[in-house]
């Protein structure tokens, strides 16, 4: 059982790492969600005992209930962050018309070149509204 779980965790980590290195933001996010689930499986396998369901009234060897509570908490947190990240991806898509990291990176570089152009002190990165408006107009 331990071997099986470790193989499953390893495969999930591998797939997650592969997806996170992709250009497509949706795949990156899928990789992140998978990574969280691999971690959840890892917590389950970190339990100290294996056995029956740890319910009140059960007899004999019971599995460790604490890791199950931890995993449940971690799943809830992971669910919340996944929803948040997907919402953010939608906003990024909305403002860049793309979920391709290369194209989003181009927008960042355009921004950086605009930061460098003006005389020092004239326009600061901290006063971004003007620059951002300009970027939007260009698009």
């Amino acid at each position, binding site marked *: 059982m331990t071997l099986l779980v470790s193989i499953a965790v390893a495969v999930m980590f591998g797939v997650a790492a592969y997806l*996170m290195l992709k250009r497509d933001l949706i795949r990156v996010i899928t990789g992140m969600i998978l990574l969280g689930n691999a971690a959840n499986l890892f917590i389950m396998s970190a339990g*100290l005992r294996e056995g029956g369901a740890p319910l009140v009234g059960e007899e004999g060897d019971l599995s460790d209930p604490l890791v199950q509570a931890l995993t449940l908490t971690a799943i809830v947190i992971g669910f919340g962050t996944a929803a948040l990240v997907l919402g953010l991806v939608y906003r990024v898509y909305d403002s860049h018309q793309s979920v391709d990291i290369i194209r989003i990176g181009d927008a960042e570089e355009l921004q950086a070149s605009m930061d460098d152009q003006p005389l020092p002190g004239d326009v600061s990165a901290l006063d971004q509204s003007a620059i951002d408006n300009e970027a939007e107009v260009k698009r």
Partner: protein
Amino acid sequence: MIALPLAILWFGGLVLALLDGTRKPIGYLGVVVLASATAATAALGVQVHRDGQQVMEVAGWDAGTGIALRVDMLGIVFAIPSLVVLTIALWFEVSRDVKARIFPALAVFMGLGLTGLFFTGDAFNFYVFFEISMVSAYVLASYGETPRQLRAAMIFIVVNLLGSVLFLIAIAGTYHNTGWLDMERIAAQTPLIDVNPAIMTATLIFVAFSIKLGLFPFHFWLPAVYTGTRPAVAAMLSGALANIGSYGLLRFGADIFSRELHEAATILFILGTLSIIYGSIQAIARHTPAEVLAYSSIGQVGYILIALAIGGEAGYVALIVFAVINALNKLLLFLSASLRGWIAGAAFAVGAFSVAGVPPAGGFFGKMAVFQASIGDQRYWLVAVILIGGALSFVYMFQIYGARFWTNDEADEATTREALVLVVLVALVIIAIGVYPGPLFELSRDAATNLPERVP
């Protein structure tokens, strides 16, 4: 008493989340909530100073069964500056008109997560509070919602979620190896576990916190985020959220994995030195204030790591003093760099002096503490590193000071009188620490005595 700051922040955050934060009175309500939580934490600090560590078993479980909130001086000295930073940054943003209705509530929830993790005595509970503050930070990073801020938030979330997952795995590993989640019991058990699992877990924890701190090889997310977000948010991230990293390294490194920390000291010295040099040189090469400050943060983290690697009471005291002053410096610099006029310029100069470690400002004593610790440890090459780092920070700080405040001094409409008063206030606090550093050192010494001496 322990639960009071948490209760204020929790209920305050809930109420604020339902209200429209773009309206001024609601924004000020958020400031009041954070300020009263700061006051409650200070009152708790007085109690801890008088009676020693305070413990509360949550929901009345027996000791050892339930989750314990355990407040010692170490938690207090990190909680108060973090809450102060959040209060001032929120106030600053309210004075310049909040753009998203959720902003005040998020600042309060970030305070809740930070205070909770500084106060908790349970490793998994630490993770939960950590996530509360991180999730607020994820949303805050996108505050402003221009394409640039959305990109910054995206980078921030992807990298920091990775860090959180690593930390979660490390906690699961710790539980498997020691059989406990309570930090005190884990600390008692870790010397007994095998070397390899201990090193694995300690490394994962180190990487997780280094990502939060933006230490040299894990810094890649930091410049894009600090330059992309709005100044108040950048101040919150670098002044409050980054404290998780320093606190976590002390709590988990110095307290729980002290043997592994000692073994890794050489690596920490190398990483710390690289961080200082890399951050300073990159900062000199940059033109915009936000970028310079971002790279300067990477450099400043190096001092924290060096103090950690020196260890012992002197090293830990230096770490705490430096981390507290650094949080205030970052708050002052990010806020004042977004303002115009000679008052903002003077406040910025105080922050710049503080980062460079020039006497009238508090940063002098932060650097001094690290300096003394490395002399006490007989590592004279570290003294050279600290001096070079200080000289380089002098160069880049005044480069941006010149670019920012000498070339253009007409006031713009974003520079409100209230915002100016706030930055002057922070500048005065930093000078006050520089003139009268005794109390801060005494409290830090008090906090460091709870940590075990490094095994020789």
